[in-house]
């Protein structure tokens, strides 16, 4: 998994590439939490465009970051999940608490 954290204004984008499983979730947790703790932010966006696998450990990791954002009064969105990844996210019920968007354009339009 490759991970890139990029702030744009008060929104922070996390670009993930590869697979989000047990091993990678731990890294995701550490790197994103460190960023949140040091910089704070209003809005966290996970860009999953280049993710080709996620399992329940990965979903748990994403929900953990959502809880952290909620604790500091921020919000979170997910962008670009491919059908195989989206299927797992929807099965988990994650869309009930974190909005899912096909593209970044869709997100901007919906969250304006």
């Amino acid at each position: 998994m490759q991970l890139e954290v990029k702030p744009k204004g008060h929104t922070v984008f996390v670009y993930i590439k590869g697979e989000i499983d047990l091993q990678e979730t731990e890294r995701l947790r550490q790197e994103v939490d460190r960023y949140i703790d040091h910089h704070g932010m209003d809005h966290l966006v996970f860009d999953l465009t280049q993710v080709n696998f996620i399992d329940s450990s990965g979903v748990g990791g994403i929900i953990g970051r959502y809880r952290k954002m909620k604790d500091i009064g921020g919000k979170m969105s997910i962008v670009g999940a491919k059908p195989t990844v989206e299927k797992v996210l929807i099965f988990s019920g994650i869309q009930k608490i974190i909005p899912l968007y096909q593209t970044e354009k869709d997100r901007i339009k919906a969250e304006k």
Partner: protein
Amino acid sequence: MNVNEKDFRVKNQIRLTIQSRAENVAFVRACTAAFASQMDYTLEEIDEIRLAVSEAVSNSIIHGYKNDPYSQVELYITLWENGGIEIVVEDHGCGIADLKQAMEPTFSTEPGRMGLGFAFMQSFMDQVEVKSRVGQGTTVILKRKVRQPVESKN
């Protein structure tokens, strides 16, 4: 040999033993996907098989062995002549006291986990069998048939 006997013939089989380390789960997934590709599965089906095996092996590592990296998870993967895959994931870890409860969606003994591993295995495979004994370990058997190609209606 009659048709029935032929159906239950092994087409191919591999056995894999891994140290119980989180970094090995990706290897098991890749290995399982490559092996399953010898059958006529669609890419979507392969993805679902990858997910199920990932859940079972992760469980052995985290729950069965409590993240002790020097234990071993064993896998036996069989491709059947009649068009199916069987994946046996076995650990000799702590075992599960209440299987019924463990398999309920959203039940987890670990804070911060989803409790959806068994639910994923059950929805993405045709059959999931779990045998477990406290203090002895857990065996998960995952089965998935190759779907017959759908006839196109003209």
